């Protein structure tokens, strides 16, 4: 302190005090600046930030409704919802989505298909919405994710429901399946209804009644934290569950039909001719819809799609085949009603048929012919030359008009997606589609259900029902309206015949097809304790798809005739129509008719027992 005496202490004090004052003023100004900044944030910008904070806090999540159940007409559940866990990601909450998915992949496995589906869904969703990555997690995967949860911001394991088909492949073509929505499907729908859900009906009843099965979306306002984890639900607008549907289908009968077809490619349509209620709609080979609803990987799905046997193809409603001799009862009625032939008129069959000035010879299926043939016999023995003559007399135009009245060349109107229309040719049809004139020979071919003529099994069943009903048309349907006295509208008008006995004559012929000594389906009448009216058909396979390679056995097999049979029972008051098609099955009587008999036997038993079937059908 010796220097202190030389120093100007008051001046030094003034200097420091001056600086203290300056610092105080600057400090106060700086704080005012801060206060001003914060005032700006909290007043001018308040609305903006309040909204942002609200957005931060609340996430609106769509709540998918539970999909309606599908039952058969006895109440067996054909499609239900099973609880499962799925893994979702909120893209906004993650830094590096690809890396995150890689990590999840390393932990529980993520297929390419799942990755693709996720990316598709993510592109159409908003960043804050949870996008499903895996639809079904094993218990092990759930546990693994739970343990590693802290590593995965934005990743949630959510309970949800997956579609399950207890009967698997049985009835799969009728019931259909659900699959992930893709972008084009979403485009043609109301997006709001599909927000937050990932599946929709792709085929069958699942697709046809999508709107009723689906229900209405609900929503939840969920409070979330910064990691996107839900904290609590603020408000809930509950979803409206989808409607449960009851089908006319009988799963027991369906099983019988499929088992009767066995390994063969083919279709069975069984329906109630009084109402059009479909009892069985089989198409073989089938597939397991559970695999698809659970998210099939692309390779497996493509394998299913490119399978030569086309398991995904619903032959019953989309397979088009030359109906062959199945047209004969209908053409017979047409021939008599149009005056081309008389019921009792006999036409001689020597095994061949010729047209004047045409070198080609049309043959009967039976070498040597059937002799004198009237309408009934023509049906029973399926006499081709009778129908060549009938066709010649009627001409293609009258045939077209009459057959159309039975529904040939039309859609049956079944309530399923993907039904294809058959072909009932006419002069106009040929000019329009092929640009060629009609030749008389083609009329003859049409007379035995060959040539250009094509029909689907369901349309054949519908036409058969009209026959069984003696002119009353039906519209086949799978949905049980609960009021079968009022059948759904049909395209075909009732067919009134001047001579009502013509129905009986035709039906008599069909009864003899099964029960007569010379009937083409007499092979199935052994031990038959009820009566069946039926008609066999064996149609030539005209073409095989070009550019496809088969080995020789395969070619041979695929060249073989399609076997067909259509029938109804009981004869007096028909309750069931069964139409069977077996691709490349050979003769209708030998291959297709036994399938129909099997179905009818089962149905008869159900009638007697009130629904129960004996062990051999279970």
């Amino acid at each position: 302190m010796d220097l202190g005496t030389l120093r100007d202490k008051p001046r030094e004090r003034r200097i420091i005090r001056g600086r203290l004052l300056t610092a105080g003023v600057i400090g106060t100004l700086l704080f005012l600046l801060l206060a001003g900044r914060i005032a700006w944030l909290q007043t001018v910008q308040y609305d903006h930030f309040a909204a942002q904070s609200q957005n931060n806090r609340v996430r609106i999540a769509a709540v998918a409704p539970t999909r309606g159940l599908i039952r058969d007409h006895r109440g067996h559940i054909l499609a239900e919802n099973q609880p499962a866990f799925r893994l979702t990601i909120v893209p906004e909450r993650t830094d590096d989505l690809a890396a995150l998915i890689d990590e999840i992949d390393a932990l529980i496995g993520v297929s390419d298909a799942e990755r693709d589906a996720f990316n598709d869904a993510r592109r159409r969703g908003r960043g804050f919405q949870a996008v499903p990555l895996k639809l079904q997690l094993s218990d092990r995967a759930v546990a693994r994710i739970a343990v590693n949860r802290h590593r995965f911001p934005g990743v949630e394991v959510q309970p949800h429901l997956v579609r399950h088909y207890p009967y698997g492949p049985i009835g799969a073509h009728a019931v259909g399946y659900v699959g992930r929505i893709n972008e084009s499907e979403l485009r043609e729908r109301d997006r709001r209804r599909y927000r937050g859900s990932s599946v929709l009906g792709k085929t069958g009843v699942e697709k046809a009644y999508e709107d009723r099965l689906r229900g209405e979306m609900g929503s939840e306002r969920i409070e979330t934290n910064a990691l996107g984890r839900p904290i609590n639900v603020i408000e809930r607008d509950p979803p409206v569950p989808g409607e449960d549907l009851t089908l006319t289908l009988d799963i027991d009968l369906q099983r019988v039909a499929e088992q009767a077809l066995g390994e063969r490619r083919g279709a069975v349509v069984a329906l109630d001719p009084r109402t059009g209620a479909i009892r069985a709609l089989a198409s073989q080979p089938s597939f397991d819809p559970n695999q698809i609803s659970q998210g099939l990987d692309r390779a497996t799905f493509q394998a299913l799609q490119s399978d030569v046997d086309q398991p995904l193809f619903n032959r019953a409603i989309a397979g088009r085949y030359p109906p062959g001799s199945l047209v004969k009862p209908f053409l017979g009625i047409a021939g008599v009603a149009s005056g081309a032939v008389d019921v009792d008129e006999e036409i001689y069959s020597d095994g061949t048929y010729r047209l004047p000035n045409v070198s080609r010879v049309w043959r009967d299926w039976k070498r040597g012919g059937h002799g004198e043939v009237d309408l009934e016999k023509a049906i029973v023995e399926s006499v081709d030359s009778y129908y060549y003559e009938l066709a010649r007399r009627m001409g293609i135009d009258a045939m077209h008009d009459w057959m159309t009245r039975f529904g040939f060349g039309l859609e049956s109107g079944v309530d399923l997606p993907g039904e294809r229309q058959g072909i009932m040719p006419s002069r106009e049809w040929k000019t329009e589609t092929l640009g060629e004139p009609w030749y008389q020979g083609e009329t003859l071919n049409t007379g035995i259900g060959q040539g250009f003529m094509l029909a689907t099994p369901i349309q054949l069943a519908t036409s058969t029902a009209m026959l069984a009903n003696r002119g009353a048309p039906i519209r086949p349907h799978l949905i049980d309206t609960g009021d079968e006295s009022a059948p759904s509208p049909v395209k075909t008008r009732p067919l009134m015949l001047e001579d009502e006995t013509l129905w009986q004559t035709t039906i008599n012929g069909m009864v003899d097809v099964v029960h007569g000594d010379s009937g083409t389906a007499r092979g199935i009448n052994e031990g038959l304790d009820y009566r069946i009216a039926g008609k066999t058909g064996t149609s030539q396979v005209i073409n095989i798809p070009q550019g496809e390679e088969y080995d020789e056995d395969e070619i041979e097999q695929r060249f073989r005739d399609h076997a067909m049979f259509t029938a109804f029972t009981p004869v007096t008051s028909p309750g069931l129509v069964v139409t069977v098609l077996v691709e490349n099955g050979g003769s209708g009587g030998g291959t297709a008719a036994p399938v129909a008999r099997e179905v009818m036997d089962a149905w008869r038993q159900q009638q007697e027992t009130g629904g129960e079937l004996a062990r051999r059908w279970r």
Partner: protein
Amino acid sequence: MNWPDGGVNAVARRATGGLLQRALHLDGVLLVLLALLSGFGLIVLYSAFGGRIEPVQGHLIRLGIGAAAMVIVAQIPPWQLARIGPGLFVLGVVLLIAVLVAGQLGGGARRWLDLGIVGFQPSELMKLALPILVAWMIARSPLPITLGRSAIVLLIIALPVGLIGAQPDLGTAVLVGAAGASVLFLGGLRWRIITALALLASAAVPLLWQFGMQDYQRERVLTFLDPSREPLGAGYNIIQSQIAIGSGGINGKGWLNGTQAHLEFIPERHTDFVFAVMAEEFGFVGVVSLLALYLAITARGLWIAYEAQDNFSRLLAGGLSLTFFVYCFVNVGMVSGVLPVVGLPLPLLSYGGSAMVTLLTGFGILMSIHTHRRMWSS
């Protein structure tokens, strides 16, 4: 020598302040202000911890330790501090070097020295040792400080700032630098030099950018300039804390009702960003109250400096007060998006031990300076 408390209130003041001031060497005004601030801090922290009481109790215990340190330090007369100042500084520098060589890695930076029982941050010691040393150096010579001495002091300040910055701990480096600089400023550093230093600093920015900063520090500055650059990365903190502040409005969302904080949107919400929690729940009313409290404490510190009876005490008291102010300003500035995020706690509100103990020790020094006046001068 004038008694500061002459006049009508003298009797009353002596009655209340006598015991505190003479026997315990505490300043009643600072004590009340600090108690108010700490109490408010506990309330805000309780909310920031989502209504859990345990961490708040921990905070209270540390507050007690800090208060004890404050009381103890208040008993040490300023001249003793001046005497140990250089030694403390040298110790601090040695420890900082030790940290760089053998420190514990914490959060990507070497800041801690493991002393067995507790981790110790030498940079905390430097927050006090540097202003004491600088005040001691400046007070030895006549004021205003000469150019040459200014240069020496600047070099001395640069040494610990550089060491802390190398850890790297930008926030503490800024704070320690501010502590030294404010003492230098009070010592009469010429405005010409201040201007020159400011120019030099702006010229040095590109160099510092290029060579003196870590990637994450550059990132912080870039993000500060444009938070939306990386809305989910570094900018996220700034955006979310601004949302918290802005959505608080005039009156706030109410205590324990801050959704930004409770839903975990605010990062480090109980430490560096606790101000955002406060602003969200108490609104502009709370912000003004808190800033007023900070300003009042700073003002009281500056008043203590103003009234101090020797240059060392004046410089040290003023320097500590201004350091406290910088502390508050930088933290509130960064949380409200006015300054880049450098990582500094908010005095007495943020959860965390050593910074609070240092801070209260500093207030102990202020109280000592205020209460030892007559003895010191006589």
